[in-house]
């Protein structure tokens, strides 16, 4: 974790109300991995008092740049849209724990609901760099909100679902899962809570049906892997990136928790934002 200045290189409204901003911030790019996030300061104390968390949308160590993708939903995100190339912001990162990929995984299924694309986008780059095949299932409200295919690596197979049927599958992105769950070795998802809940339950039932939920686990042998550890996540079929309102983003304020199946609050900023889907209590009222 480092505190560093980041210089805005480029700011584009890629979809109505959705922005993609690229920053030069070598200190925050070094060692950063897909699934992690930065906590960015919004001006001084004259108005807003909290930073805003953004997933690393892309990470480019060669140029020392990172990008973030957000929708304008309030004063903080609006503040970011007023930044101009050359402006500097203060970023804290890399924060949280990244996605973990099993070394034997060949077929990677990414599932994104709306802005959730920002949470899994950089994993597509990582997986392709490592020679894996990637399919991205994207769900949006309508054609107007579909993430531009031109912003994805060529190697990604891109499948779209829209709520109103204006493009791609007419319905929820989760309805596409049955066609891919057999093919996929591992799945990684980010999006609205209802979508993640459906995916978690599909992943759970998949274990019953296909019996390979825990890819590569040796029957009976080996030491038990502690739940929540990177190893346990690496073996999980489905990993999800969670969202929660944040204060500190370093684990100090306990503002950002979700419950695990043992009933212990997990900090999204510290133990997360990536969790194995079977770690979390999806019925809990959090």
């Amino acid at each position: 974790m480092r505190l560093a200045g980041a210089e805005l290189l480029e700011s584009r409204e890629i979809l109505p109300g959705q922005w993609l901003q690229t920053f030069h911030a070598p200190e925050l790019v070094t060692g950063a991995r897909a699934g992690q996030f930065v906590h960015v300061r919004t001006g001084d104390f004259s108005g807003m008092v909290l930073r805003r968390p953004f997933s690393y949308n892309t990470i480019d160590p060669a140029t020392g740049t990172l990008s973030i993708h957000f929708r304008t939903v309030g004063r903080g995100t609006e503040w970011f849209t007023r930044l101009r190339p050359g402006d500097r912001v203060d970023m804290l990162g890399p924060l949280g724990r990244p996605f973990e990929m099993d070394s034997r995984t060949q077929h990677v299924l990414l599932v994104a609901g709306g802005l959730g694309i920002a949470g899994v986008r950089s994993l597509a780059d990582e997986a392709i760099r490592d020679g894996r095949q990637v399919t991205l299932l994207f769900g949006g409200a309508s054609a107007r909100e579909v993430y531009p295919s031109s912003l994805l690596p060529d190697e990604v197979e891109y499948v779209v679902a829209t709520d109103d049927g204006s493009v791609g599958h007419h319905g929820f992105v989760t309805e596409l899962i049955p066609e891919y769950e057999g093919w996929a070795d591992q799945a990684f998802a980010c999006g609205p809570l209802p979508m993640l809940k459906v995916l978690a339950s599909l992943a759970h039932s998949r274990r019953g049906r296909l019996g390979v939920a825990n890819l590569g686990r040796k029957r009976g042998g080996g030491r038990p892997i502690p739940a929540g550890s990177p190893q346990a996540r690496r073996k999980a079929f489905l990993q999800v990136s969670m969202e929660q309102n944040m204060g500190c983003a370093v684990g100090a304020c306990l503002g950002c928790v979700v419950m695990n199946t043992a009933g212990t609050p997990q900090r999204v900023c510290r133990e997360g934002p990536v969790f194995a889907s079977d770690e979390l209590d999806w019925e809990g009222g959090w």
Partner: protein
Amino acid sequence: MKAKRRVVTSANGERPGLAKRRPTVRRIKPAIAPVSRHVPDAAAPSRAPASSGSRPSLGHACAAPTTSASNSTVDLSVDLGRGLRLENPILVASGTFGYGTEYSDVVEIQRLGAICCKGTTLRPRIGNPTPRVTETPGGMLNSIGLQNPGVDAVIAKYAETWAGWRVPVIVNVAGESVADYVEVVRRLEGVPGIAGIELNISCPNVGAGGIQFAIDAGAAAGVTAAVRRATDLPLLVKLSPNVADVRPIARAIADAGADALTAINTLSGIAVAPSRQRPLLGNTYGGLSGPAIKPVALRIVYEVSQVVDIPVVAIGGVTELADVLDFLAVGAVAVQVGTAIFADPTLPVRLVEELGAECRRRGFASYAPLIGTALPKRASAPSSKGVEYRP
């Protein structure tokens, strides 16, 4: 109404009036090898005695400004009572700095005056439903619900680490009965690494119909006295702003044996969900903090400083040196930084430097001349009498 206060900003100012209440001056932490910018230790020659009896005014409560002060080290140390001497008066507030370890990658924590850890209870608490935090104009609301692993786990997990630190750690203690508070404090007593206790009394007294200890002078004094009997650790008690008149409560707590007061805790508030169908926070109510509450905190410190003669530590909306100076001016001897840390983690350490620089710039050998300068000569009318209509 008595209007008198005492300011102690140096290690060994004898405090005759309070000697009875301070029988033991324990060294909680072993002396740790001093580093460069070290303040004089307890054996160093005494500075000019702190004022006693009357409120301090500029140049009264400290050594006369010396010429050497402009280029030598300024004494920023402060004594909060019962041997709790801090190297500087900038603390980090409970609940905003975890257990001190979370921010250590980016903050030089050993340079802080002290760390107040997250509220600690007898048994583990999983806390409130989410959302737990939300930003508000100039501030934020939180309803963490005192999530913590319980006192035994806190000791097991952190005490050894804390014992190796130069920065003192003050454990913030919460409970829902007097017995709870007493038991937590008993378990903390004598544990190396624990420099003091800060009682969070903004908790419901379950045995007494769930009314907060902090809003009733009798209940506040009762829990303070019980804890006082249970421990020799320096005891700070944290005031709630959610009361009609804070002065009788502050006095009752001081009389019950608190070594210092800290003020303020958060103000009760709510936010509405974007759907407008329900309150936003999972727990409905939250505590407001940040720059938005600074005027309230200033008012409470101003009122409390005039009626107690134990040190007052200010908390509420500190974001820059000017805020520190304001709180000192209304009688605080130290300040805690809370919410501002989330945006600006290195702020507290910078404030230490800036306060030293401010003293040097003004030719002061310590920051004592900055304390109490805005307090009235005679006790002021309390805010409980109303603001618009003067009696």
